[in-house]
C-alpha cells in the first residue's frame, strides 16, 4: 500500500466523531457566554474610563479591580537609577503636562493621544500576571495590532513574548505574542484563500540598548511582512527587566522617541 493511502485510511479511522446534538450545542452556547462575559468586562472597564474622563477633573484616579490606570497633573513619579547604564538621548523631554501613571512608570502622552484602560494578562503556564495598556491617537483609523493603533505598554510579572512565552529581549519574534498567524494589519480582514497572514519569523535586524527616560532599555527591531500583500514593517521593543516594563511600537510612530524620553520611574 502506498504511504499516502495508508495515511488516508488510518486518519479516517483515527478521527474521532461526535454528533452535532443538543449537548454539543449547549457547549457552544456556554462558550459564547464565556466569550461575551470577557468582552463585557473589557467594555465595562472602558466605560468607567470614559465616564471619568468626561467629568473633566484635574486629577483622575481610575480603578477597576485588578486593572489600574491613573492620570493626574504633575504626578509623583521620581527618577531612579536602578536600571543599567544611562545613555544620552538627544531627545528633549516633553513639557510636563498631564502625566499618566501605569504601575511603576509615568509618562506624558503625545498630544492628541489617549490611553486605554489596562487589561490583565496571565501566563498560561505559570499563572504569573501582568497587564497592558494601549496609547494611541484619539479616533485613529490607522493600522491596528492587538487592537491598538499606537504603542502597547506592558508591565508586571508576566510580559508576553513570542507565542505567549515570557518576553526575552534579543530573541526572534518576541514582538508577536499570538500563536495564531496574525492577520496583516494594513489590509482589511480576509479569510480563506485571501487570508493575508503576517510572517513573524523575520530577522532581528537591530539589538542594542536605548534610553527610556533616564534608564537604559534592551532595544530590538525586527523585520516582518504581510505574506500576500508584501507589506514590510519593522516592529520595535524597549524592555526594562528591573522595572518589568515593555514598550512595543509595531508601526514606527514619529512620536515614540519623545514619548519614551518622558518616562519617569518610581522606586
Amino acid at each position, binding site marked *: 500500500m502506498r504511504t499516502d493511502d495508508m495515511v488516508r485510511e488510518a*486518519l479516517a479511522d483515527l478521527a474521532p*466523531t*461526535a454528533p452535532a446534538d443538543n449537548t454539543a450545542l449547549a457547549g457552544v452556547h456556554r*462558550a459564547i457566554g464565556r466569550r*461575551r462575559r470577557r*468582552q463585557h468586562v473589557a467594555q465595562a472597564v472602558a466605560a468607567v474610563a470614559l465616564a471619568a474622563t468626561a467629568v473633566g477633573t484635574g486629577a483622575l484616579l481610575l480603578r477597576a479591580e485588578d486593572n489600574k490606570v491613573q492620570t493626574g497633573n504633575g504626578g509623583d513619579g521620581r527618577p531612579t537609577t536602578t536600571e543599567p547604564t544611562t545613555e544620552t538621548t538627544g531627545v528633549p523631554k516633553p513639557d510636563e503636562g498631564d502625566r499618566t501613571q501605569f504601575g511603576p512608570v509615568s509618562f506624558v502622552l503625545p498630544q492628541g493621544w489617549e490611553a486605554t484602560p489596562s487589561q490583565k494578562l496571565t501566563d498560561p503556564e505559570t499563572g504569573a500576571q501582568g497587564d497592558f495598556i494601549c496609547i494611541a491617537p484619539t479616533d485613529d483609523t490607522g493600522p491596528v495590532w492587538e487592537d491598538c493603533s499606537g504603542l502597547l505598554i506592558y508591565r508586571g510579572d508576566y510580559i508576553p513574548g513570542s507565542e505567549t512565552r515570557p518576553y526575552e529581549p534579543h530573541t526572534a519574534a518576541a514582538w508577536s505574542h499570538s500563536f495564531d*498567524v496574525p492577520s496583516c494589519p494594513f489590509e482589511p480582514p480576509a479569510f*480563506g484563500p485571501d487570508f493575508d497572514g503576517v510572517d513573524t519569523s523575520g530577522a532581528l535586524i537591530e539589538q542594542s540598548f536605548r534610553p527610556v527616560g533616564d534608564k537604559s532599555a534592551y532595544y530590538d527591531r525586527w523585520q516582518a511582512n504581510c505574506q500576500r500583500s508584501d507589506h514590510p514593517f519593522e516592529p520595535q521593543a524597549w524592555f526594562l527587566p528591573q522595572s518589568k516594563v515593555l514598550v512595543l511600537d509595531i508601526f514606527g510612530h514619529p512620536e515614540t522617541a519623545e514619548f519614551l524620553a518622558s518616562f519617569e520611574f518610581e522606586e
Partner: protein
Amino acid sequence: MATEDLFRERYSEMVGLAGLLLNDRGAAEEVVQDAFAKYHMARHRVREPERQVAYLRSIVCNLARGRLRRWGLERRRQPLPEREALPAGDAAEARHRRDTVAAALAGLPRRQRECVVLRYWLDLSERDIAATLGIAAGSVKSHLHRGLAALESRLEDLR
C-alpha cells in the same frame, strides 16, 4: 449560513480535525465548541458562504495549536489512548496499522502534522491548506513532502 446551521453541518468534521491534531477527543470537542463561539461572534466578517467553512477551519487549527502550546510538548507526544479491543485477524492488523500511523503522526513537527491532516483527511488542496494555516503554498508543499517522507520511513515495517 447561520451559526447553528453551520454547526449541524460541520460539527462532527471539526471535532475530527481537532481530534487528529490534539489526540484527545474531549479536548477536541471543547476546542471546536469554542471555535464555533468565536466564529459566531465574528461571523459578520465573513459574508461569502464558501469562506465560512474555511474560516471556521482556521479557527479550529489556531485554537488546537494554542491548546497544544499550553499542554506543552510532552503531552503532545504521548501516544494515543488505547481503544477497545478488536477481534483478531484483519481487524487486529488494521488496528496495528492505525496505531502505528498515529504514533508516527504524533512524532511529526506541528506544521507537518497539520498539513498532513488537512491534506489526507480533509482532502484540501495545497492552496486551501495555505489559506487555512496562513502560510505560503510553497511552505505547505515543503511541509507535506517532509511529513510524508518522515512517515514513509517510520511506516516501513507495515508494508
